[in-house]
């Protein structure tokens, strides 16, 4: 057995097994995130939410999936066929790709690479292609407007996100995600870098096209934005991709600021709960905040969105970056 696992075929089999062990729970998480979102939104709006299919509506996601599968896939006649069908697949694939480097516990990452954070940043910056290609290939003006908005929005917010990540990296001295979490064993970065946490959280709302920055799909003006023309499974893939991206970004927040798999306090009752459970709890907290924000804030106007990104977040994160660097240098806390 041991020598089989060391052979190339064994390594391949092991990697496939690890990938399945991560992606299947992620997909179930995605399914129940859609349920949780409807339940939480309903509770905040004094409704009951899904409550018919299964106890407490728990089977609703599967009913929805079945419904999506049964629907007809409609391809608009003026569309660019290959790109039209490729865009949702791209969105979904990218949302799954990022999980390769996420460490749910110490040493549990499938690929514990040196430049893990850059890899995640690269994958998240590619998410815009699914949206742009979908908008262009649909050959519809609403879809196209949604795609253009999305392109400008995601490029703008990536800049401040990048500065936040650099600030965290300066405190760690490594690009490896496991190292980033280990550096927070005694003090989570949310405490010294609290303003950066806020900026990061708002930026990931914009990066995942969630409310109040859901202009690419703003239904009150663009019908449904970039996916107006999509139906059936191609629509479902966009949907799954968006929710998987939310979970991925929440995991990134957990890793960068909320101490990953560490318990909030390193003494008895807290340390009984294993690391992965803490990780999932923190991710759930972030996701709850995503939904909470959606239930609370109205959609931003487009120019205000751009102003917030370029004129507020960018200067502030740049200033905080320089201040953090100066502080670390002057107090001699700069990691080697």
């Amino acid at each position, binding site marked *: 057995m041991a020598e089989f696992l060391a052979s190339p075929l064994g390594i391949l089999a092991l990697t496939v097994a690890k990938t399945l062990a991560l992606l299947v729970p992620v997909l179930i998480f995605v399914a129940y995130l859609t349920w949780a979102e409807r339940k939480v939104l309903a509770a905040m709006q004094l409704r009951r939410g899904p409550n018919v299919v299964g106890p407490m509506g728990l089977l609703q996601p599967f009913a929805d999936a079945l419904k999506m599968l049964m629907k007809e896939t409609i391809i608009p006649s003026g569309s660019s066929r290959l790109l039209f069908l490729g865009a949702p697949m791209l969105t979904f694939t990218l949302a799954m790709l990022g999980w390769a480097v996420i460490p749910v516990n110490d040493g549990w990452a499938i690929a514990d690479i040196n430049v893990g954070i850059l890899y995640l940043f690269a994958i998240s910056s*590619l998410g815009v292609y699914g949206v742009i290609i979908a908008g*262009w290939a649909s050959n519809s003006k609403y879809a196209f407007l949604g795609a253009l908005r999305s392109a400008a929005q995601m490029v703008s917010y990536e800049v401040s996100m990048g500065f936040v990540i650099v600030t965290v990296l300066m405190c760690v001295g490594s690009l490896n995600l496991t190292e980033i979490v280990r550096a927070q064993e005694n003090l989570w970065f949310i405490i010294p870098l609290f303003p950066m946490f806020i900026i990061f959280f708002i930026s990931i709302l914009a990066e995942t096209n969630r409310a109040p920055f859901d202009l690419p799909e703003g239904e009150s003006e663009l019908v449904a934005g970039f996916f107006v023309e999509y139906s059936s499974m191609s629509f479902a893939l966009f949907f799954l991709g968006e929710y998987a991206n939310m979970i991925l970004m929440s995991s990134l927040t957990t890793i960068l600021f909320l101490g990953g798999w560490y318990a909030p306090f390193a003494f008895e009752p807290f340390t009984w709960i294993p690391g992965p459970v803490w990780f999932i709890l923190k991710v759930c907290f972030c996701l709850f905040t995503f939904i909470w924000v959606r239930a609370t804030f109205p959609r931003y106007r487009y120019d205000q969105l751009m102003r917030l990104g370029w004129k507020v977040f960018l200067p502030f994160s740049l200033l905080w970056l320089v201040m953090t660097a100066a502080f670390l240098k002057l107090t001699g806390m700069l990691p080697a």
Partner: protein
Amino acid sequence: MIAALAFYLFASILIASAVMVVTSRNPVHSVLYLILAFFNAAALFLIAGAEFLAMILVIVYVGAVAVLFLFVVMMLDVDFVQLREGFQRYAPIGAIIGGILFLELLFVLGTWQFAADAAELRLSPTPAGVSNTKALGRIIYTDYIFLFQAAGLILLVAMIGAIVLTLRDKHHSKRQNIAVQVARTSELTMAQPALGEGIRREDILRPLPPPSKAPKPVAHHGHGHDDDHGHGGGHH
């Protein structure tokens, strides 16, 4: 063995997609092929052990530059008939320039000499025990910091130049001053304007209506006042 196979796979896709960038008829497809080419180049960097460069290539070129390319190309309405109009006339000049560049390349390659210690440097691209991110950082930010900063300044000057060249005088654009809006109090004032005059205070978004000489009959004025005259330009 696997690395060599992967190299040939990525290299052939890279060349094929680079050819498609030039030959494909639809400009949007060209840009998409360009993105594919960037990806394969990043994969080649990974095989060469330059993981940092691979990621930066994807983040900067694919994640930002190509998005803007795609953005612009999608917005352009390219007319191919018009593009091909002068082809016959300009083809010889283009061919001559291309030939000269090709000759120059040949001269450069003909006199190429490897430095004495290049071979061993090539075998160990990074010093032992140092990750290549650290090695790059050391070279760029410690050994050659001033040259690097100078390069950054030159780029900054180019950027400012581009902005200055494209900045137009926008007297007529209406800007939102958030600070003023936030500082505004919500106090209400009662006004009793003359018949047909309306309130002569400047509004936030609309310029003043043109002053009318004589009061007009009330039936034609009234509530629609601002909308009737506001967009017409006013006297600003």
